[in-house]
């Protein structure tokens, strides 16, 4: 199972901080996963409508949407960071 995490306004919009789901059929990259999530429609389609506003980490390291994913990966979606 993939472990998917949502932070900051993505979590607010979706009303959940994360979920687990099986690797979608034919999904090999973060981009493929985003396509599968967008296909749910509603807030999922809305938050991923502008991928340039979203950052991603695979297994707690920053990644690009082209990064490969595999079953059991932890994939986090969040806005650009604003700490300090």
């Amino acid at each position, binding site marked *: 199972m993939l472990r998917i*995490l949502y*932070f*900051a*306004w993505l979590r607010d919009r979706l009303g959940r901080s994360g979920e687990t789901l099986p690797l979608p059929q034919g999904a090999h990259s973060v981009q493929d996963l985003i396509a599968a999530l967008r296909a749910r429609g509603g807030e999922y389609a809305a938050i991923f409508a502008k991928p340039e506003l979203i950052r991603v*980490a695979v297994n*707690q*390291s*920053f990644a690009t949407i082209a990064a490969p994913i595999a079953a059991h990966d932890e994939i*986090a979606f*969040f*806005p*650009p*960071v*604003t*700490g*300090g």
Partner: protein
Amino acid sequence: MPRVTIRVQAEAFDSAHETALLLRGHEDVGGVAAFTGIVRGGGGLVALELEHYPGMTESMMCRIAESACARFGLVGCTVIHRVGRLAVGMPIVLVLCASAHRGAAQEATAFMMDWLKTSAPFWKREEFANGHSAWVEPRAQDEAAKARWGSLTA
């Protein structure tokens, strides 16, 4: 090995206490540079709500701290970042860098803050007196400040 301390916590920190811990047993230190970030008021801001990504945040802070130690030859450093609700005027982040000479400590402190602001997974939500709240947008000048250092591991 440099002495590196990284913490993410809701509680306040004591800069003097952390400085004493950093220096303990290190007679080779000639200076400690310190930066304390404060929740800045204005525009009706009441508080910030700080969120992080447990695990990844600490590992990025550790990478940044270790990179600063290697790059500037630090004897040690301490980075403490608070999370949760922080009212205007409250301390939010502490960076301490200890080195033989002041230049390295001061530069390393700036380096760490520039990287922390742009690369450690923290997010701020602003809470205003009128009840409105909004997630903070990243600032282009923070990204530019980081860019002057090149890569993290240079």
